[in-house]
């Protein structure tokens, strides 16, 4: 047995630790586009997803915004769903049981208009079982602070994150809004409040006008811009925040290919989430996973940790 052989290359390892959640793949489904997952589960293979982040859940049902809620933009889209959701009780009774055995880790995105509403959702989900982590969406209007989103002010951010932190032992992701002057101070406030990871970015605020009707295209006037159009902004924020916090980052915003995902990882993201790209290509997670493995083999990379933040 003395032949010289090519060193057998290790199979690339995609497993990562995202703030205490161990994911088999660094590819997640972003909160929103997939809803509560059931519909997509019939359509696509969930295996390539390390985790699924379900659509925002509030204490009570929210009815959402009037239609039209969607518009296409150049290399992107606007949505003004307005966080419509069936509320915590129905989610726990109807949706959660269907998701528990889906395969990927399950992260629940939580929303509220006051810190109490956030903690109300968090404490009940903490005891629900079968949930691997929570993601706090701090883009909601803070009713006590005149409706400015929690995520636009470091103090409100700290307050809501630390309040939720006290109510749950589950790994806690905090999802930041990009509509701010300085994303780093918001990210630091989230870290200080007890976040285990930072999710970046939510949608950019935008609008379109229907020139025939002479009125805003969306029923809600404003909507959130997502898709490849915003990727350079998302990547910049990941880069900035990675230099400011010690906790890992879940990067998202316009990811549409393995190369896009690699840009996020090299900018400092531990994992990536897919949103709008799933509308363009429901099988996107699979093709990104294949692309990542191919890249890792070609470049002799065993774990993504070797390239996390390497461009910095």
């Amino acid at each position, binding site marked *: 047995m003395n032949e010289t052989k090519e060193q057998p290359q290790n199979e690339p390892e995609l497993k990562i630790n995202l703030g205490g959640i161990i994911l088999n793949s660094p590819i997640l489904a972003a909160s*929103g*586009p*997939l*809803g*509560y*997952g*059931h*519909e*997509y589960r*019939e*359509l696509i293979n969930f295996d390539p997803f390390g985790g699924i982040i379900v*659509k925002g859940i509030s204490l009570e049902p929210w*009815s*959402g915004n*009037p*239609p*039209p*809620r*969607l*518009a*296409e933009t*150049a*290399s*992107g*889209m606007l*949505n003004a*769903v307005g966080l*419509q959701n069936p509320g915590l009780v129905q989610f726990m009774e109807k949706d959660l049981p269907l998701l528990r055995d889906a395969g990927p880790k399950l992260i629940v995105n939580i929303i509220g208009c006051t810190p109490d509403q956030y903690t109300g959702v968090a404490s009940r989900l903490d005891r629900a079982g079968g949930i691997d982590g929570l993601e706090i969406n701090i883009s909601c209007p803070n009713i006590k602070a005149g409706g400015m989103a929690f995520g636009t002010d470091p103090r409100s951010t700290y307050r809501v994150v630390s309040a939720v932190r006290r109510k749950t032992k589950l790994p806690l992701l905090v999802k930041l809004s990009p509509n701010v002057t300085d994303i780093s101070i918001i990210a630091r406030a989230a870290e200080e409040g007890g976040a285990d990871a930072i999710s970046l970015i939510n949608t950019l605020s935008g609008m379109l006008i229907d020139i025939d009707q002479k009125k805003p295209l969306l029923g809600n006037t404003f909507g959130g811009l997502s*898709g*490849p159009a915003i990727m350079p902004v998302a990547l910049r924020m990941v880069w900035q925040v990675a230099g400011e916090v010690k906790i890992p980052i879940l990067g998202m915003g316009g990811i*549409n290919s393995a190369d896009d995902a690699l840009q996020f990882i090299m900018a400092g993201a531990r994992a990536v989430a897919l949103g*709008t*790209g*799933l*509308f*363009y*290509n*429901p099988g996107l997670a699979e093709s990104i996973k294949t692309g990542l493995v191919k890249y890792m083999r070609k470049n002799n990379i065993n774990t993504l940790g070797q390239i996390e933040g390497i461009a910095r």
Partner: protein
Amino acid sequence: MRVTLYAPDIAREAYPGQFVHIFMPPEHRDHMLPRPFSIFGTNRHTGELAVLFEIVGRGTALLAGTDPGSSWRLLGPLGRGFPVLQPGSLLVAGGMGIAPLAFLAASTTIPRTLIYGARTADQLVCPRENLELPGLTVYEVTDDGSRGEKGTAVDLFSRLVEGAGAVFACGPRPMLAAVRSISNRAGIEAWISVEERMACGIGACLGCVVPADGGYKQVCRDGPVFRAGEVIIDE
């Protein structure tokens, strides 16, 4: 324009009122969202499926510009279509609303009537042969009288509604609203097919809603065909 696609899985399952999502060719990254189109007809033997569409914006222009023989990514059949036709049914199509109704009309041979209206003759885009069907009576109507009767589909509908078995309509919102209230007054069951901008097409993203009593319904999953009373359609 009428496009025939080879899509045996979809053709096998689809029934009238359902739709397909057509994804943009991958080199067109500026269009992230697929486009929904009603199924205009299927041929289970050949595995073919037809859609009928008009160019209204960039996406439909791109699709219309693809070469014959190209492949398109498709998702479908999607949504909840029409119930089975009863004898004496009255079908009301406005403009492109003909697409699902032509498929519905072709699904049976029992006696049924189709009102097919548009602004002008050249907006009656459905090929004539698709409406030459046993047992089907067709009334054409145009705003300017350039083909068929002069007037609107709603005018004609008001006259013909009495005694209809059930009503099945697809067309512009104001037409649907009128059909809804006229059927309601006449005490006749009506089904309408509604359009809304879509993203996922499968009921996940909550993007395509239409107001209903006690909240919103999703057009792609709960519809596109609704019982007329189920949804709120502004005149």
